[in-house]
C-alpha cells in the first residue's frame, strides 16, 4: 500500500526561538482516492475487520501515536 503520510518542510527563519522541526507530516486517508466504493473489494477476516475498524483493506488507514519517539 502506498504511504498515506505526506511531508512538508516549513520555513526556517534565522531567528527562530526554538529548535526547528525540520519536517511536518499529515495523513491523507484512502477515502480521498475513492468517490464511490466499487463492489467486491477484498475483505479482511471478521476478527481482523473488528480490529481494523473496517471490512475492507482498501479503506484501512494506519496511525501510530507520536507520543513515543517524538516527532
Amino acid at each position, binding site marked *: 500500500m502506498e504511504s498515506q503520510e505526506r511531508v512538508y518542510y516549513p520555513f526556517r527563519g534565522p531567528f527562530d526561538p526554538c529548535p526547528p522541526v525540520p519536517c511536518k507530516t499529515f495523513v491523507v486517508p484512502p477515502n480521498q482516492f475513492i468517490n464511490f*466504493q466499487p463492489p467486491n473489494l477484498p475483505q479482511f477476516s471478521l476478527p481482523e475487520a473488528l480490529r481494523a*475498524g473496517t471490512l475492507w483493506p482498501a479503506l484501512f488507514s494506519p496511525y501510530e*501515536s507520536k507520543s*513515543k519517539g517524538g516527532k
Partner: protein
Amino acid sequence: MWIYEKKLQYPVRVSKCDVRMARYLTEQYGGADGELAAALRYMNQRYAIPDKVIGVLTDISTEEFAHLEMIATMIYKLTKDASVQELEAAGLGPNYAQRDHALFYQNSEGVPWTAAYIQAKGDPLADLYEDIAAEEKARATYQWLIDMTDDVDLQDSLKFLREREIVHALRFKESVQILIENKDQKKVF
C-alpha cells in the same frame, strides 16, 4: 425506534491511570467535532434530504451514539477512582466543583456543548459537505488524542474510532455521488 445492545461497539480497555487523558477525551464527548455533535447533526439533517440517502444519515448517526458510549466509558474509567487532588492536577477541578465525578457534555476546555456547533442548511449538498468535513475533523481530533497517550490499549480503541470516521466520510462522499449522478432519470442521447 432503536434496539439497544448492552455491549460496546468495540472493547474499551484503559491500562494506565491517567486522569489527564479524561479531560482531553472530553473533546470527543461534548466538543464541536465530537461524537454528540456528529450524532445529533445527522439525526436532524435526515428529515430534509432526498430519500435515497436518509438511511446513511440514520445509520451513521446511530453509530456515532455507539462511539459516544465508548468515549464515555473511557472518561468514566479514567476518573471514577480519581481523588479530588488528582482531578485538580488534571485540570478537572472546576468539573468536580460543579458535579463531583459526573460526566458532562463539554469540550476539553470545559465549554458546554451547544447546538450552535451543528447546522442544518436544508440543501442536500451543503449538508453532506458539512458532514464530510465533520468526519475529517473528528479523524484529526482522534489523531491528536492518540498522540497524547502512551497507553496502547487506549490507543487501540481510539484507532478503531479514527478508522470509523474515515469510513463515514467515504459514505457521505458516496451519498453526494448518488445525488449528483441523477441515476433515476432516463438519459436520451
